[in-house]
């Protein structure tokens, strides 16, 4: 059974005219439990629209959404359940913080779930720990944190609901390289330690290559490609046509291969690239 599944999901924004194409159309997405699924696509391709269906914020105009095999639009209870089963963290989540202290803000989700006080406290501490927020930050005002800390505190606010699947919309957008690295690390660690499903929207191909088990490519509201990093980044030409790119190292190795070097076609991360270069050196291969 898939953790999250959509069947020919279609959505047309109600305030758009009849002539405009649907924001998303016929999306069949399937994320297995514990999988890290990355969604990429050019701006306006419908990524955010798609993920807002997963926790029942948008009601599909066609098709259906299943979380753990359950249709989330079955009844009122299932809609509310979907809110907590799928934790959705919007782009720039730090702008939605409102409580006086970081701790209270992280506790907002669990409190809405109606959990007892000590359970809330335990979840807040656990979530803060996942995102690497020191306990000294908790009594501070959210507005006194640095940009990266604010972002991580906001993500903790969603994690504290302990959703079965975590959905992050461009979690590293607008952060400096160190902040990006921290977020990527915490996503990997969260997934490793909880074993829960994670969906991630990203514009950064290096990040996608590094994190993803599976990649879904959106193009003009449709799912254009879906598969592993090798299957998706192997189609560099098609990606470029859709206004996307492949990781820089993949591009470099593609050129090396074109220049006649016997290098692997499946180099997507810096680690893989370093290992491949080390192999070349070991085997004493020279440029022709």
């Amino acid at each position, binding site marked *: 059974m898939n953790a999250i599944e959509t069947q020919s999901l279609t959505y047309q924004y109600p*305030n758009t005219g009849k002539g405009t194409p649907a924001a998303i159309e016929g999306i069949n997405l399937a994320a297995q439990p514990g999988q890290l699924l990355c969604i990429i696509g050019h701006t306006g391709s419908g990524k955010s629209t798609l993920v*807002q269906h997963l926790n029942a914020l948008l009601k599909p105009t066609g098709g259906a959404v299943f979380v753990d095999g359950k249709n989330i639009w079955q009844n009122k209870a299932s809609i509310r359940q979907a809110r907590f089963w799928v934790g959705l963290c919007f782009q720039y989540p730090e702008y*939605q913080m409102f409580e006086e202290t970081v701790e209270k803000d992280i506790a907002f989700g669990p409190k*809405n779930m109606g959990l007892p006080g000590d359970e809330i406290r335990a979840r807040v501490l656990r979530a803060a720990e996942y995102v690497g927020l020191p306990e000294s930050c908790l009594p501070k005002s959210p507005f006194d944190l640095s940009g990266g800390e604010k972002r991580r505190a906001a993500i903790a606010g969603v994690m504290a609901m302990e959703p079965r699947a975590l959905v992050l919309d461009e979690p590293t957008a607008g952060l400096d390289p160190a902040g990006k690295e921290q977020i990527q690390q915490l996503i990997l660690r969260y997934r490793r330690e909880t074993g829960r499903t994670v969906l991630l929207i990203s514009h950064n191909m290096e990040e996608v290559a590094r994190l993803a088990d599976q990649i879904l490519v959106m193009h003009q509201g449709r799912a254009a490609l879906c598969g592993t990093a090798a299957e998706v980044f192997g189609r560099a030409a098609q990606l470029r046509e859709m206004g996307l790119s492949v990781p820089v190292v993949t591009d470099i190795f593609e050129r090396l291969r074109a220049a006649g070097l016997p290098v692997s076609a499946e180099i997507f991360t810096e680690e893989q690239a370093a290992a491949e270069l080390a192999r070349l050196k070991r085997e004493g291969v020279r440029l022709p």
Partner: protein
Amino acid sequence: MIKGITIGQYFAGRSPLHRMDARMKIVLTLAYMVVIFLCKNFWALGCTALAAVLCAALSGVPAKMILRSMRPVLILVLFTGVLNVFYTNGPNTHIWFQYELWRVTLKITREGVFTAMFTTIRILCLIAVSSLLTYTTTPSMLTTAMERLLLPLAKLKVPVAVFAMMMTLALRFVPTLIEETERIMNAQKSRGANLETGSLLQRVRAFVPVLVPLFVSAFRRAAELASAMESRCYTGEGPRTSLKQLRLRPWDFGWLAGTVLLTAGIVALNHFFRAVI
């Protein structure tokens, strides 16, 4: 849920109404509002209403959109209509219908019915014409025109240009803030906030998580905008010219003449036919 609200409801087009100088449009709209209250009998009222219908037809704005702008005041119109029908009393009223209900006498008089009809038609015409003004003029044009019209007040040290700039900025940020509100509402709903059910007090309290981030972001935007304007040397002093120049053209005077003619016609009709209210 908030998407139904439209402010700055411009309907793009190239009709004669769209091409009229915005200053002229504002002045003539005001003149029309006066004229409609001058009407004393059904002939005059009919002519004025006909003028509104003709303008609406000329504007190319779909009738549906104009009718939609009347919807919010429908209750008010019905309410005043009913009140007028039953509560018009006078020394020489013609009673059409009378009914004793306990100790209250319900009385429908001819004058009451006429007053109700007059008020209803007047309110509907007012709304039709003022919505035509906003449908055929972009918000920025409207504020520019207002600024020009109020410019004489600057002599009395009223900061007209600053007010106009504030108006322009406010209009510019309405859609942005609506979008922002929606985003924040979605974000809080994702954390299980319940914004749609519960008692009024509960619902007001449930909006705190939306309002706080909204104010924070509005202040942030305001600060950013202020620095952006200052770095372009905006001071709020001195005369400012406008990118879109307003110019009166021959046809604008045609519209003026038409309105004068209408007014003259109404005065004549008032004179020749018996007043009913």
